[in-house]
């Protein structure tokens, strides 16, 4: 493929018309938003982790790793990404199969693949590989896609989702499916098809109920009526709502959340950290956080719209929207709008793997934005 002057990494690096960040293939608004978010996240983590600096340090280390990966990926031309799409996807699915066959069991679920040096969670790879592969299939021919291509993409999504749900890891399965579906949506999936499939999904819900594990069913039941089991599975929901509600408009102040510090709130530094924010910073603090998330998603969608080719547009749209799905599923679950699903609050919850994947995605977004033809 012919490349114009200025499109290569090296040339943009020395292009005097571009700012220093741009020359490093970093998108200033996105980077600014992410840094603000992570700084806020560290402050909250310090409080939620009971002022344990070690927790903050470990998170900081992960962040550094994640930003490093983001930086590396930002240097990669989207053309390379497109070429890797299918191999990466195939590799991911093969590793998922390997996990099912040889994986380590952690917390009752098989998610990890021990590679000798590091323990690796292949499902994280699929969060990137599925939208990449979907964008690759869709961009191969003019949009909107016809029915055969939609079905092909659907199959491409379904295979890893089923494998991940088998582990079982409902949260990741939802995120992987969401990543693929949003690419389909951005790619112009017909409205009739959307209506038909959602209707069919509604009709198939009882079937889904049968295929769910007991603990997953219990979560749905508890979501519908948390008070039915206040000390068991409803405890998370009740305590997180108490934490958020008692925060009020202004919150109890940083480090002053009683629900979190007296250990009433379970998983307060991981999946339920949003409740800590609600308790300590109140509605105002939370709205600031939501605005920050909204800004990042907005910037991602702008990048998608401005992308030079279809593959880049679809991938950028999918990556931005999967970030939204993270935010919505987590905040919805903590506020009691959605059932409890193990999805972290992106870039704030304590924990490594999802953060690295997310930042890798943002690196790709930046690559799409900065590698102009």
């Amino acid at each position, binding site marked *: 493929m012919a490349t114009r002057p200025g499109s290569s990494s090296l040339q943009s690096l020395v292009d005097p018309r571009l700012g220093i960040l741009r020359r490093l293939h970093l998108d200033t608004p996105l980077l600014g938003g992410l840094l603000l978010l992570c700084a806020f996240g560290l402050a909250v983590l310090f409080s939620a982790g009971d002022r344990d600096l070690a927790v903050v340090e470990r998170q900081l280390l992960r962040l550094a790793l994640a930003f490093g990966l983001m930086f590396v990926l930002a240097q990669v031309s989207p053309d390379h990404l497109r070429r890797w799409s299918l191999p990466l996807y195939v590799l991911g699915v093969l590793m998922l199969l390997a996990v099912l066959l040889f994986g380590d069991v952690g917390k009752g679920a098989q998610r990890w693949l021990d590679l000798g040096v590091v323990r690796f969670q292949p499902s994280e790879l699929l969060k990137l590989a599925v939208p990449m592969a979907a964008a690759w299939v869709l961009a191969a021919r003019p949009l909107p896609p016809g029915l055969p291509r939609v079905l092909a993409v659907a199959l491409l999504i379904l295979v890893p989702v089923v494998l991940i749900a088998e582990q079982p890891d409902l949260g990741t399965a939802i995120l992987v499916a969401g990543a693929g579906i949003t690419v389909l949506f951005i790619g112009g999936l017909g409205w009739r098809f959307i209506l038909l499939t959602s209707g069919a999904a509604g009709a198939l819900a009882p079937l889904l109920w049968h295929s769910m594990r007991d603990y997953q069913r219990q979560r749905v039941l508890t979501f519908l009526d948390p008070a039915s089991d206040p000390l068991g599975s409803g405890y998370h929901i009740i305590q997180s709502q108490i934490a958020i509600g008692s925060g009020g408009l202004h919150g109890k102040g940083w480090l002053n959340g009683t629900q979190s510090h007296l250990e009433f709130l379970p998983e307060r530094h991981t999946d339920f950290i949003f409740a800590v924010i609600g308790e300590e910073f109140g509605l105002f603090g*939370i709205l600031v956080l939501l605005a920050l998330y909204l800004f990042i998603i907005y910037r991602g969608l702008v990048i998608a719209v401005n992308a030079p080719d*279809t593959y880049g547009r679809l991938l950028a749209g999918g990556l931005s929207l999967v970030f939204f799905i993270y935010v919505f599923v987590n905040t919805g679950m903590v506020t009691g709008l959605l059932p409890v699903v193990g999805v972290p609050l992106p870039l704030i919850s304590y924990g490594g793997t999802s953060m690295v994947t997310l930042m890798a995605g943002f690196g790709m977004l930046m690559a799409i934005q900065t590698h102009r033809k």
Partner: protein
Amino acid sequence: MPRDSWPVDSRLADRQREQRLVATRAIIAGVLVFAALAVVAARLARLQVHEHEHFSVLSRDNRVKVQPVPPARGLIYDAKGVVLADNHPSFSLEVTIEKVVDLDATIGALAAIIRVDDKDRERFARMKRQRVRFQGVPLRLNLTPEEVARFALDSYRFPGVEVHAELLRTYPHGALTAHVLGYVGRINTQEMERINTSDYAGTNFIGKGGVEKAHESLLHGHVGYQQVEVNARGRVLRTLEGKPPVPGRDLHLFLDIEVQRAATRALGDRRGAVVAVDPRTGGVLALVSQPSFDPNPFVEGIGQKDYHALLYSPDKPLYNRAVRGQYPPGSTVKPFVGLAGLVTEVTNARKATYCPGYYRLPGQSHRYRCWRRGGHGSVTLEPALVQSCDVYFYDLAHAIGIERLKPFLGGFGFGARTGIDVAGEMSGLVPSKEWKEQVRKQIWYPGETLIVGIGQGAFLATPLQLAVATASLASRGQFFQPRVARSAQLPGAPAAEDLPVVAHRIDVADPQRWDQIIHAMTQVVEGARGTAKGIRSQDYRIAGKTGTAQVFTLGQNQSYNAARIDERMRDHALFIAFAPVEDPRIAVAVIVENGGHGGSTAAPVARQVMDAYLGGSTPMSDPGPVDGD
């Protein structure tokens, strides 16, 4: 349009269309994202603004628990400061049945780490039935520090089971003070309805008898509370605020443990009661009922077997004879009847009555016999008292009449509860026309007044009433409501506060009348023909009166032969006395059940009590066979 440019144009058009399509979809997605986050924000606004109050309360309830802080029960000291009731710290293992899912499994698992024997299980089963809901039931008492530590390690396995630190009441003198002090025990359901439950939050024990029950409100104190911050596992992190409890007041008694011990020793293993009162104050110096029991096991919850052994013993050790035992006072009532005769001016010191050995009401053939078959001849008040002539008092009672005799005796405390601060007191009975009509639905016969005159028949008095009446006589008409506790002291307070005194004067118009009765009573001990001359002391002078309470009534022509009848059918021996005559400091009433004659069995007991209090040491002479009643 050239054909070869079509694909280029078409591709360009496609690309523009694709770009528009993706842009449109991105905008729709952006709107959806905004809408979804707006829903989350609306949900947050609902939680944080609309329901903020509700969740604030829940959050507060989550972390703040109000714990009652029970007051320490007041201690009880005798007149000289000897501790009679003490508190000692103790750890018990309590199970809140309502919080335990599988009780048997829990107890089984507990028994694996802490010794739980059959006695513990038996007590637990019993207390479980009587428990107050959501209050812990002790499974083990007096845990050793090692056991406490062992349980603490495993406590997470036992929800609803807690180690409870509490102050356990102990009675260092055991059986010696059981009847007068009573004891404390765990609050039962009936008591729960009576007490102010919020004031007893955290308190497990309540006075079950004696002084412990009568002064419950003083001894208990008032509950305090503390607001504590707890974490999700219920561990207390810090105290936020609180109100300290008001400790129970320490009681200082009139009771002198040495006098109490002397009285108990004097009674020995005989059944009976001794009450000693200070005539100057109404203070109870000793209150003994024998046999007695060790109150300490009752505090922890006595085992059923031990309890039944006490309850069904023929000697009735749980029965407080001193305040609940009602006996015919017999001849010990004669000084009071004699005084009534003087006050009503039915008789005087010189007026004599002839005793032929029996008395007959005018116009009746029934003979009311004197204890001396041969009669006393012509006797005035003093010899009649000293020799306890029944005929003299038949005649006197008849002349006074029951309408005047009953209220006069009532002035000395007969026939009504004295109001002593020992729970469970009985009232005794002075019969009257009204009483007989109301209770027995029968008319009053004149002969019954005669029987009242010698303290027999339906006339009943407790040993306490006899002691109080004797003290009032000794003090020449100063009646004090008897009391065991002198003063109450808040721990830390500089001085004890005296408890209220209830008193009245008995008016006899002419003070010489006291002298006449007291002189006669002095002759009972000091006189050559006195029925209690065996207890005469070199150290002080004693005034007294012997008596015999009939356990069963003889027929008209039967005579009483102690040797021939069953021991438990023998008469009760009674004796009342006070000393020193000139300045009375102690008044004593003694009853020895089935003891026979008052002068030989009851009077020596009184003398030993007086010696203990007044410091006498003269040996008693052998009373020998005493003639008379």
